[in-house]
């Protein structure tokens, strides 16, 4: 565990969005959740590239969902955080929190 790498900033954001969305986490919903919470305009390609990387690390698992007319008859791909992924998010969040502690007061808002 000590040698295991931490999640990157964007990976952590994506993992957070997945955990918030639960069973409804698929491409567009994740992008909108990130945009809503962070104001970050994420491209579909960047998101899937990150999700694919997280999937390979075993932090995320995917399943195919239903197709719909608005998607041009194409299926959704739903993502879920695995137990291993949850542990990794906790580790990264604790590390981040620990680093932020004791920093100047103007950063307090960002910590909240």
């Amino acid at each position, binding site marked *: 565990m000590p040698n295991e790498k931490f999640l990157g900033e964007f990976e952590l954001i994506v993992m957070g969005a997945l955990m918030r969305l639960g069973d409804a986490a698929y491409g*567009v919903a994740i*992008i909108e959740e990130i*945009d*809503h919470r962070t104001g970050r305009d994420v491209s579909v390609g960047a998101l899937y*590239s990150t999700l694919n990387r997280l999937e390979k690390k075993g932090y995320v698992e995917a399943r195919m969902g239903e197709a719909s007319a608005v998607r041009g*008859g194409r299926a959704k791909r739903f993502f879920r955080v695995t137990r291993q992924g949850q542990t990794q998010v906790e580790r990264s969040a604790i590390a981040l929190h620990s680093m932020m502690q004791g920093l100047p007061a103007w950063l307090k808002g960002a910590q909240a």
Partner: protein
Amino acid sequence: MTRITAGSWSDWLIYFFAGPELGDAIAGDLREQSATDRPYKRSYELAFVRSLPGLIQLGWRHVSPKRIGIEAVFAALALALISAWEVLVARVYAWPLAVEFFAFSPLSITATCKLAYLVLFSIGMSALLVGWFTLNATTQPSWRVRAQRLGSCSIAGLAPTLILLLNPGPHDGDPLFRYIQIVSIALIGLVTATCCRARLKPA
């Protein structure tokens, strides 16, 4: 297995980089993002262009170094065999052969030369196919990959032959023809490698 339903050039690129299953989800997401009732609506074209770097990154991550090596060896083998056959055999023997048989041929001397070239080139292609099947036997790919390889092999042989047929002349050693052939074979090798990557295990 998800059916590939690419309907436009952008879809084709998405499936090309992401493979059938992931490509389906990405193409669907891009369409859904541009739907009018979305709170964070995006123009399809802009969203697609912005996604390209991620798609390219995604595509190459599927290809294992082992597979890149195998495909590179194949591309080099195909290039070497076709070029060697054409330069050493077809180019040298097609014209004398045609001249020899011209008396019996109902065709013009140029047409006879090209026919002889085609026959010799076909023999070369057959030799290449033997190598092709040997490679398949060694790497044990799926039937789809085998078919893709067969297709690229045929195109590799067909493209220069067609160029030759469209450009009359007593000798077939046109340098432009050679360059076009080399580039087309290299491109075919690259496209084949990338098309195959969706079926491959990650590195």
